[in-house]
């Protein structure tokens, strides 16, 4: 049996891992909700954020990277929507999924061509690169910073979606895109904007995660597959569902790492399967057109 200190630190790790996953899932689920498409390249955007953080840290430091990298990734997202995804609106959503499959594959290879196959390391910022002694437990400062940053970004996103006028347009767009465009809103622009915004979120998650995540070409998928399951667990189209799902997956993962480390990756699948059987719409999901 693991000791008390180990349990506490593992569970805290799990919560923090869950917050990062939630951040990835929130962006993924927003695109799914607003545009009805599965963006398989969302993991690529997460990976790009981390790699840009790696390259930028030498020039502008960690905080510079935290601002600039997500903006670049957001721009890449906008470009992606503009060049590829825009052509496929109104068509079978299957096509967008195949397309983003292709983008994810090509992108992973491009990352490998630029940065190489081996894992890169991103330094934690100087103010948070040591450990805090809480008396009963010594804990990494950066992990705490990571939790705070992820929670802050999630909170800001929620505020933007739920409280701002722009947010109400976006939410209306998920319910009835046709009506929104009849009301004179520029729907294509909103879609591009939402896609770019979720890319920015994915990039930000990548930067925040970079110092503790192994930054390698396949990292995108390591974050995206949990995000899929989180959306299933939390419920499609539910913002807090994604956050709750992220935390559940993070904690479940931490617990299983303590007891059966080799199959820890499977825990989230079991969790998702159980949720699916008892709550077909996810824990906080509502009836949606996507079923």
């Amino acid at each position, binding site marked *: 049996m693991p000791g008390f200190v180990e349990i506490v630190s593992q569970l805290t790790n799990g919560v923090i891992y869950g917050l990062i996953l939630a951040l990835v899932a929130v962006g993924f689920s927003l695109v799914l909700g607003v545009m009805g498409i599965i963006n398989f390249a969302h993991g690529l955007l997460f990976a790009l954020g981390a790699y840009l953080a790696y390259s930028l840290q030498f020039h502008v430091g960690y905080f510079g990277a935290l601002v600039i990298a997500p903006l670049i990734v957001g721009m890449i997202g906008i470009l992606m929507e503009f060049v590829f995804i825009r052509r496929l609106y109104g068509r079978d959503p299957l096509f967008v999924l*195949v397309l983003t499959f292709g983008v994810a594959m090509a992108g992973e290879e491009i990352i490998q061509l630029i940065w190489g196959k081996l894992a890169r390391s991103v330094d934690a910022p100087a103010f948070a690169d040591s450990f805090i002694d809480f008396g009963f437990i010594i804990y990494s400062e950066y992990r705490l910073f990571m939790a705070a940053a992820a929670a802050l970004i999630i909170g800001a996103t929620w505020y933007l979606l739920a409280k701002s006028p722009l947010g109400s347009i976006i939410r209306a767009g998920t319910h009835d895109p046709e009506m929104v465009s009849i009301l004179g809103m520029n729907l294509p622009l909103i879609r591009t904007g939402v896609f770019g915004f979720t890319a920015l979120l994915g990039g930000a998650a990548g930067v925040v995660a970079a110092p503790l995540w192994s930054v390698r070409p396949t990292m995108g998928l390591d974050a995206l597959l949990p995000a899929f399951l989180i959306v299933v667990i939390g419920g499609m189209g539910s913002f807090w569902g994604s956050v709750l799902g992220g935390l559940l997956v993070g904690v479940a993962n931490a617990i299983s790492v303590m007891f059966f480390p080799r199959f820890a990756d*499977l825990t989230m699948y079991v969790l998702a399967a159980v949720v699916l059987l008892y709550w077909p719409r996810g824990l906080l999901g509502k009836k949606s057109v996507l079923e």
Partner: protein
Amino acid sequence: MTQVDTNTPPAPARPMARRQGAMAAKFAALLAVLLVLPFIVPLIGMNVGIASEIVIYSLFAIAFNILLGFTGLPSFGHAAFFGTGAYMVAILQYQGIENTAVALLTAALGGGIAAGLVGVLVCKKRGIYFGLLTLAFGQMFFIVALRWDEVTGGETGLTGLTRSTIDLGFAAFDLNDQMTFYYFVLLVFFLSILVIWRILSSPFGAVLRGIKENELRVQYLGYPAYLYKWAAITISGAFSGLAGGLFAYYQYATYPEFVFWVQSGNVVVATLIGGGLNSFFGPILGAAIFVGAEDLISSYTEHWMLFFGLLFISVVIFFPNGIPQAVMRLTSWIRGRTGAQDADKASEETGK
């Protein structure tokens, strides 16, 4: 996909018989082409083995298309069932069971059981949510293949498989011979697609097509749509598993890559290239083009993922309805404006 006319009255009996005759002719033509395929393949500078790979991949794509093309369910986790079949053959052989027929039946059974289990979770879903779930749960099989090394060999997979000799008393066939193996694969393939066609043209298949057009209407007619979907997923998984089993023999090995998400994407793209959304035989053409392209790409560059990615993107953007339709559009465009409209109409008709 959804704008197909659902008000068409049921076809009268005589054209039905004629359609079956036309179908028999198509099967015969296909068989004729595939019988000479191993002689054509070397002419364009490819290894004879590629012919076997094309036929195996065709079986996989047709099995997959039971869901996508005929039930309207976009599965993105089919590598799981294909891979399960491949691992079944390898695991049996590591346990000392060499009989080819037993191994292939177990492969189909394994694929079917895997699909049946996933099917329980996904059979009440449709559309893009179905895609999301199959993609996610498909990847679960990859993790099992990777981590359960005692059984699956982990990252290195199970290598060094053997193909046995099939002894029928009057003649013995050594499957290690490329040609013999090809014709063995062709036999399995042809019998399988006859069975699949029989299933799809039965009343059961009609319900599946009904689900593709309008699931709600099928439910209102009193059919438990989710049970039909579950059965379709299971059958599709079983034939995918059979294809995977053949593929294990073809490669003399199984690797975790067989179960990887890229493989699930490959079969979708191969099916789309062939125009499989609307056609039974389309996936065969798609598989041939796909396997050919794969062979070409991987012999020229190690960055195959980049080119595959670009292939995926261009398939969706330039010919989402398959190469046959794209070719028809191109020829009509070349023929000039007057001919264009006719050919467009014709291509739409054959598309259905």
